[in-house]
């Protein structure tokens, strides 16, 4: 924790949570996205509907799940359905407002790689793979992404496009047949990026307090565009921090250790 009284992880989580609005339907990836969505639900968006790909609709966990299919999700859900149904009747049908994803790597158009580092047929590092992401990225009304910003994660050229962001930019996504609007916000530990309305290239529109544009550029594998006058992210308010820390403390007690992320 810095002298500011909160960590970069905490401001990242809080800043992302503020983007979710009450009553929205959010398809939640595990790890950071799940922490964000639950923080939003526990604070300003009590009617945020959380869908996990394990088939839980309207999950209201008291602690953060370690996996996408924890029992807590099923117990607190409004409805639990089979996995084929969650993808067909709920995601593919267009019932999801926000797809909230993590990523191993993204590029300047917010395309996502979670498949391999190195060539596909001779990977240097074999990553977990696609999971639900390609269809979440295509079908959700819009997509939010959360990941830490570094030259390892923000890369000039993806080794593999697992899930489509804005593809090659411009209207390339619109022409692709994807139904949703694609990534609209990327929240990192340094700030917030949004696609340029025309080129769809990511622009750093907000920096967390104390973070400089040069720091952000140095943590990016391409020549990062930063807004002329980037906003400064509002620091976490005490009540936000309290909720988040209480959530993590409950989670640690429940799981016997801190979760890996978030």
């Amino acid at each position, binding site marked *: 924790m810095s002298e500011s009284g909160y960590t970069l992880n905490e401001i990242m989580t809080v800043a992302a949570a503020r983007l979710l609005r009450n009553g929205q339907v959010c398809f939640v990836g595990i790890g950071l996205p799940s922490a964000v969505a639950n923080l939003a639900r526990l604070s300003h968006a009590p009617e945020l509907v959380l869908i996990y790909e394990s*088939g839980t609709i309207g999950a209201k966990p008291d602690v953060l799940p*370690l996996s996408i299919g924890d029992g807590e999700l099923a117990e607190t859900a409004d409805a639990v359905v089979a996995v084929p149904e969650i993808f067909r009747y709920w995601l593919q049908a267009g019932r999801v407002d926000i797809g909230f994803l993590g990523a191993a790597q993204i590029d300047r158009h917010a395309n996502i790689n979670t498949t391999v580092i190195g060539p596909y047929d001779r990977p240097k590092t074999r990553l977990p793979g696609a999971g639900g992401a390609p269809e979440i990225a295509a079908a959700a009304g819009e997509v939010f992404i959360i990941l830490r910003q570094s030259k390892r994660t923000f890369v000039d050229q993806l080794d593999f496009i697992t899930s489509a962001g804005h593809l090659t930019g411009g209207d390339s996504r619109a022409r692709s047949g994807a139904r949703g609007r694609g990534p609209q916000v990327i929240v990192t530990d340094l700030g917030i990026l949004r696609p340029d309305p025309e080129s769809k290239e990511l622009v750093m529109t907000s920096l967390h307090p104390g973070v400089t544009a040069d720091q952000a550029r140095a943590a990016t594998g391409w020549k990062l565009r930063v807004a002329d006058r980037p906003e400064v992210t509002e620091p976490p308010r005490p009540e936000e921090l309290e909720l988040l820390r209480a959530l993590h403390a409950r989670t640690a007690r429940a799981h016997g250790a801190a979760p890996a992320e978030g």
Partner: protein
Amino acid sequence: MAAIMSLREAIAENVRDGDVVAMEGFTHLIPFAAGHEVIRQGRRNLTLVRMTPDIIYDQMIGMGLANRLVFSWGGNPGVGSLHRFRDAVENGYPAPLAVEEHSHADMAARYQAGASGLPFAVLRGYVGSDLPKWNDRIRTVSCPFTGEVLAATPAINPDVAVIHAQQADKRGNVLIWGIVGIQKEAVLAARRAVVTVEEVVERFDATPNACILPHWAVSAVAVVPGGAHPSYTHGYYDRDNAFCKAWDGISRDRRKFADWMEKHVLGTRDFAGFRRSIGLAEAGAAS
């Protein structure tokens, strides 16, 4: 009626060398005990199918039982990588592992097609993704009404599916509650099916709406209390997060892995023996 038999018999009868095997479970109800029994019986040349390969597939791959993996997300949930899986893909150790890779939505649709007696599934999938470039089993089909082009993939019809469930009744009807995952579809897509259960009960405390499989759709039922450990069985026991984290360390090292498997899986007679050998209490009594 499903035959209720020992897990050893159920695996011996239903899982054969060279089979396409789907051991399904979505975080909940992973059929670990059955996976161990497949390892003990030394099956070879398996094609392993699963949406979310995790520790049990890491063990099977690490033991060299599989030459092909069909999947959509492979990891140790909440922990990180599967090191035996990565070693096989990245280094061909202990044997090369061909991968056929899809997305979750696709795999789920492929199981549905398999369960439905259809040769292929249609989905809105893979828009802008590189996956179809590397997998010629992801193709397209045009809607005969709108002309829209959609993704098409072939049905999955495993030789055998293996799942774990909370309960069977005396006739072999199967009950699952909590996260139900893809298990019903995996069983119905397969030619044969083995179900391990926590217990056999006289009758279910649930409406017939909750019965996931009628007895005659299942080849064999085996009672294996605790059989999903270290994953969880809703209403019976929680996930063993400490084990899942410990697995990261065990599986990073080839030798450590081999010793562990030798001692705890090959060196034990059955899942109860495995549980004792890793220091777990005896699981709930079978009825």
